[in-house]
């Protein structure tokens, strides 16, 4: 498929040595070939960012792209999701996007997956060398982050084991603003390290909604959250059902009139109920392309990576800020282990109880299984394993861990990935010292 000269522009980066390149960059024609033939990249989301990412990656020379999205095409997507047309409305985004990109960019293979990210198992995600995220929800980002960080293994010296790292590139937009970031698990901060970067969602106190509404949004949320359940019990609300939305609008309009509040419109009702984030083509294009460029850099090392977070603000002039966020050394998701100190006399059973009581873990765990250096110490399921590992419960943890502190892997059905707990035993200070240094390395 590659006619002579097709990739001439990108070849300037791939075939020529540069001065500001990534570690161990080797310019050569094989680099482009492996980008096209061997490397596999997953794009999560085929919406505003996803459509752009697919185009950008295909035209950066990536030849094997998978895309996953659970949504179908809606009319309101057409102002920016440029791979979709009016006659595509109702079809799965991933399928249509893949088709369009393959049609236009000859030689690229795009495999669509129409479904939820939670439906795919670890083996699915492990196939990819890089994952590019074009998502609009914090929950989905956290999920993928946990999955990818659970693949991460640490060497004895505390450094992340390179073959277990799957880098992620993430973008997000709202109106004229956006961000692009590079997440190399174990090296740069993961989502969980920097959860505070996401603004908290606006929620209204129920008493305000019920007793002292002041804004149109208060009236709409009252009808949506309270009145619907009272007047249409058993009828589950569907934001995509026009009759449901109209009902909310009519009732909210009446309620607003009653309180002399102006400004309830159908458009606002939709905005509040669906939590609509305004979105335009240009911002999605900018952010996706910044992400795709970083993906190319990670894949080929043809240029050093951005370090590690860029925000873009386009309302007052154009202002960008690129900054290096710090990893949380005790991150529950990506760190080598969350420090946890216990008495050397405790049994495994007691240890599990302590975990379940600890404020950092208690809402994340229900029935934890514990393993140590690939050895199952206690498994809650299946029954055969449970029975086999049950005798350990009464053994001292200190003995089970070979009289040294270290990292225990905790699995739990409540967790998306795994939890690494760095156990140290009181009165065994040498071990504690060792592990602290290791954690920082």
């Amino acid at each position, binding site marked *: 498929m590659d006619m002579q000269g097709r990739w001439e522009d990108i*070849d300037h980066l791939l075939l020529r040595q540069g001065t500001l390149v990534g570690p161990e960059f080797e310019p050569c024609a094989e680099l482009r070939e492996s980008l096209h033939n061997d490397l596999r990249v997953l794009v999560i989301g085929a919406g505003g960012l996803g459509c752009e990412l697919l185009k950008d990656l295909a035209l950066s020379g990536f030849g094997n792209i998978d895309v996953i999205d659970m949504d179908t095409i809606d009319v*309101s997507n057409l102002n*920016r999701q440029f791979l979709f047309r009016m006659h595509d409305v109702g079809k799965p985004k991933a399928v249509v996007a893949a088709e369009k990109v393959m049609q236009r960019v000859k030689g690229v293979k795009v495999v669509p997956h129409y479904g939820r990210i939670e439906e795919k198992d670890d083996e699915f995600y492990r196939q990819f060398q890089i994952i590019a995220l074009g998502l609009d929800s914090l929950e989905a980002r956290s999920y993928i982050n946990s999955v990818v960080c659970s693949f991460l293994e640490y060497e004895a010296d505390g450094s992340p084991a390179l073959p277990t790292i799957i880098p992620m590139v993430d973008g997000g937009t709202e109106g*004229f603003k956006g961000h692009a970031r590079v997440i190399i698990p174990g090296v740069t901060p993961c989502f969980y390290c920097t959860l505070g970067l996401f603004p908290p969602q606006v929620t209204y106190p129920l008493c305000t909604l019920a007793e002292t509404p002041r804004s149109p949004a208060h009236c709409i949320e009252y009808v949506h959250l309270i009145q619907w359940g009272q007047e249409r019990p058993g009828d589950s609300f569907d934001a995509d059902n026009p009759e449901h939305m109209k009902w909310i609008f009519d009732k909210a309009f009446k309620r607003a009139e009653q309180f002399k509040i102006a400004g309830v419109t159908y458009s606002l009702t939709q905005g509040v109920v669906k939590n609509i984030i305004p979105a335009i083509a240009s911002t999605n294009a900018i952010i996706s392309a910044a992400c795709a*460029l970083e993906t190319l850099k990670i894949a080929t090392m043809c240029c050093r990576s951005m370090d590690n977070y860029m925000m873009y603000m386009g*309302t007052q002039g*154009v202002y*960008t800020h690129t900054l290096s966020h710090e990893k949380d050394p005790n991150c529950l998701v990506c760190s080598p282990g969350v420090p946890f100190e216990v008495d050397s006399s405790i049994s495994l059973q007691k240890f599990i109880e302590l975990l379940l009581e600890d404020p950092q873990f208690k809402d994340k765990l229900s029935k934890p299984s514990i393993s140590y250096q690939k050895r199952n110490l206690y498994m809650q399921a299946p029954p055969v394993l449970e029975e086999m590992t049950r005798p350990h419960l009464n053994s001292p943890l200190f003995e089970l861990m070979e009289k040294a502190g270290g990292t225990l892997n905790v699995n739990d059905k409540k967790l998306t990935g795994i939890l690494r707990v760095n156990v140290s035993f009181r009165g065994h200070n040498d071990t504690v010292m060792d592990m602290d240094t290791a954690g920082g390395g």
Partner: protein
Amino acid sequence: MAVRNSNKYDRQLRIWGDQGQLALEQANVCLLNCGPTGAEALKNLVLGGIGSCTIVDDSKVETRDLGNNFFVDWESIGLPKAKTVCAFLQELNDTVEAKFVEESPEALLNSNPEFFFQFTLIIATQMKEQSLLALDSICRKRNVMLLIARSYGLTGLIRICVKEHCVIESKPDNAINDLRLQKPWAELKRFADELDAEIDDPVIHKHIPFAVLLIKATEDWRKTHAGSLPYTSKEKAEFKVSLASKKHGEDEDNYKEAISSAYRVWSPPTIGSELQRVLDDSAVEVNSSSPDFWVMVAALKEFISNEGEGDAPLDGTIPDMTSTTEYYVTLQKIYQEKAELHVTALEARVKNILKRIGRDPQSITKSAIKLFCKNARNIRVLRYPPLEDEFNSIIGHELQKLLEVEENSNATFYVLLRGVDHFASSYNRYPGVFDDELEEDAMKLKTLSTTLLNKMIGGGVGGAVLSDDLVSEMCRFGASEIHTVASIIGGIASQEAIKLLTRQFTPLPGVLIYNGIDSTTSVLQLKSFA
């Protein structure tokens, strides 16, 4: 029109509204050169629903285009690129009238400069300095807006060339409503006085709006401080402590809000430096040919020194605050009514001015005046100097400042982006296009660019030193147009185009330099904004 497509455009109507959409639908945009940078810029505007567009490009689709341009395909090799890109863009939105002219922009500039007069906005991509100079002077003659976009390897730049751009709805991100807490007018003061903050009823006590709490607290403070407001940080802290002491319980959100909003008392929104600059502008001396915007600014200036008593008109909007519905709605109405009085006052002044300059007093509508009043504190005027001035070193001072403070060297990229054009006019090709002349080209580019820089910053002795790393990267790029970089530059260009066309938000106040190596940008401010 906007209504017919309100579902399709829902997500953007929430940003620029029906008026913004209408402005887009009336725009006639011209794209010069439809490589990836241009095609991507236009793509975003076609999706957004501009009225019509015309692509000017005389090249044919080549194999190389298949590696970086999404709006050509295998079957179109050998066909006119303008025609191909036009057809693929048309598919994105059938309400846009997409046209093309198979000619080179340079040739058109020479043969038929009037061609460019028909457009609202021209986006010139991947063009050399000489042609841009000619284009800028043509556009200035007829007030056609010009946006220049350039992608070059991992770097690029964007600049706006417009004589004057006036913005009423600049929509700043963190606009603070004007509440006049330290200067309540009679109705507002009466409302505050009628509410008893000492009341025992716990429900009422925790529902007195923070605006009222602050008006009362300010009045009390003044009584014991010879009429002045809290000034030192100690006084400000005292003010907050005395507010807190009036709380009946820890759960009183209205008091929490009053304490966190106390700054509104000592730093109320006043006439900011940007507004002052607009008021002091000589264009405020209006005549019969003055645009409506300046007539309203002239009226605003009169208003401020008369009815406004030193302040701009009230915007009439209040933020949400913990309150009973009744108190809140009443308060809202008090602000709205005052704002309407201001609109009426400004309207009378506008009419007088119109009469004075010999125009129809009704020619500026009440709704236009209302919009102006609502946004009066944040109006903006941007003037972009002719490109010739930028090239003749008015940018030198800014550049030098940037060269000194920046460790990421974006200022160097600006110099090199201009340097490659000088290289091209000297050697008839860009540096680094041939693999075997990379080192030689780097030396030549460095010499040329250093001369250029020294000319711009007027420096002789010692002069500036350009980083060898960046010079050699620039040669490595060899005028390549990388798709992702083109998509970023095209994307920013289209965002700026939307701001210019809708006259909302604030466009770029200078030249934007993009650095794809570090994923950073810098803006070189042009002198007219200083």
